[in-house]
């Protein structure tokens, strides 16, 4: 039997994880909506009705998607399962390979430092760092610095000078 790739092996777990998140959110949303509606004595035209209807629909749709997910799983050839949590972990690694995770962390770091450090140094550092990490063609370092500086200046002129937006 041909060994399946990690992408194929973990497809069910990846879909299941996202479905679990959405389904859990739907349950939470429905519960809280009922509480709001209850506080308004279940009046039809109150602020609680619409969220209850929506979260109820979300529950129904989530349930239907879950059923279809498990039915598809039943039909498919079962792969080597190394355990539920192992499958979830492998699935996450497949969804978010190292370079995507690191790029995301760099972006989060940029957002975290933009206020204390300021727009110009934070943006310059972010652009240079991210470009250095992602640049497959390995352009010269001074070219990346120049590009980052140009983009930082362009954004400053557009947002601050032209549109009077206050950047950190």
């Amino acid at each position, binding site marked *: 039997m041909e060994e399946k790739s990690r992408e194929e092996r973990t497809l069910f777990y990846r879909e299941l994880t996202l479905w679990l998140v959405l389904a859990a959110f739907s349950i939470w949303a429905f519960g809280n909506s009922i509480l709001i509606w209850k506080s308004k004595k279940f009046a039809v035209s109150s602020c609680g009705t*619409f969220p209850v209807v929506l979260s109820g629909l979300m529950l129904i*749709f989530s349930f239907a998607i879950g059923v279809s997910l498990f039915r598809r799983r039943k039909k498919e050839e079962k792969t080597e399962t190394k355990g539920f949590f192992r499958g979830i972990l492998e699935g996450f690694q497949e969804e978010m390979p190292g370079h995507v995770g690191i790029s995301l962390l760099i972006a989060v770091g940029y957002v975290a430092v933009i206020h204390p450090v300021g727009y110009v140094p934070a943006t310059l550092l972010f652009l240079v760092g991210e470009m250095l990490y992602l640049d497959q063609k390995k352009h010269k370092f001074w070219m990346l610095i120049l590009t980052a500086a140009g*983009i930082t200046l362009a954004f400053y002129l557009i947002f601050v000078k032209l549109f009077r937006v206050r950047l950190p």
Partner: protein
Amino acid sequence: MDYSAIFTVITDPKLVALLFLGVLGGMYIGAIPGLSGTMAASLLISFTYSWDVLPALAVMVGVHVGAVYGGSRSAILLNIPGAPAAIATAMEGYPLAKKGQAAKAIGITVMQSVLGGLIGCLILLLATEHVAKFALQFAARDYVLLGMMGLVLIASLGGNSFLKSLLCGALGLFIGCIGLDAVDGVKRFTFGIPYLYGGINYVAIMIGVFGFAEALSQIRDIHLNIEMKQDVGKVRPDFKEVLHYFPLALRCSLLGTFVGALPGTGGDIAALMAYDHAKRSTKNPKVPFGEGAIEGLVAPESANNAAVGGAYIPVLAFGIPGDGYCAIVIGALGIHGLNPGPALMMNQPEVVGIIAGGLLLANIFLLPIGFSGIRVFAKIVEIPRGILMPIVMALCVIGSYALNGNIIDVCVMLFFGFLGYFMKRHDYPVGSMVLGVILCSLIERNMRRDWNLTHDSLWASFTGIFSSPISIVLFAVVVAMVIGQTPFWRNRKKRKEKAK
């Protein structure tokens, strides 16, 4: 309408120059995610406060036309719609850019935007009163049905799973409920966080799910070194091509003008309805929809620019804004001591002239402005991913910060970017979610208004649908759309096609 006033106004060189600058600026504003025409309009009010009313309006009308078109640029080149109205454009424009035809796609959108804008303007000039009277007949439940139609539409357009699309639509509507309720003042799902009292800014969500999520997706495949070499030889569509798509453009422009004339709707729903119409009415497209079908570009672009003309119909007829931008224009008129409505048409025809004539000229100016620099713009797509994606990510951060100068908007953008990345990978259409957030207030407000009118009687509310021909038609369309997406109907359609 006093047509001589229009002629007088559009032959004034100063006003013409301001219109031109407005269109030019508006196009680039609309193209940058995080900046919008509405934002530009708010800034323009502070700039033009001390000006005379005609020059101020000339700039604002020009920016409106330019910004609505501009949203399609980033949609085609980067798969980041500059405005919700460009979501449908991204569905066809970006696949064309991946095939090396970004310049062709931009050329088509320019042409169709101009055509749609001119048709919308023509209807504004000739039929304001009639269209406005018809729009006034729309009751609260009709707006609910229209909003539901928009959601079912986008649910049927996005992805292979209708259920996932409906879930995303409902999720978007739910996210739109977060915040202080406008009527009861109750805090809904705010967790005691003051930022959430005003609700979550849909633009931050849009930048996240379309911009940041797309950047993460492209980074994921960066090792594949996919090159998108662009063919910039032929940019302008030839006359035969324009004529071939003219019937579709005309139908979509009429649709766009009418939907734009409904107060509070705007080009977003118009563009999606037009896209759906194109999908249903085109029997054998040369390229399948979703892979770069030209019809999928013609329809939304002609509709959303036609909707601009339509949006000014209720402004001129009743002083009611057709969309968010028009609300600011009404504010600008108020600052200059003017009240839009029938009295304005009688007492200040030159003001009406600059709006109507300005729209006409602005759409004509869009032609040379839109075609300028296409070859340069198209080359943006050829920039190596490793250089372009950090720039896109920085733009997403700064664009979302620029909304309110609040770092929490950036956090919202990051969160939805992260969520959108996973949703896209598993065929959960994020467009449905964004549209749900946008339409929530329209649907909920009118739904509660309708229930109030029927004294909380759901049965009376439901039977009320059958008391008005407009409601019956809208209801029938929504039901037909939902039935059309069921597995039973889809299989029936497939069997019919196989038999043919």
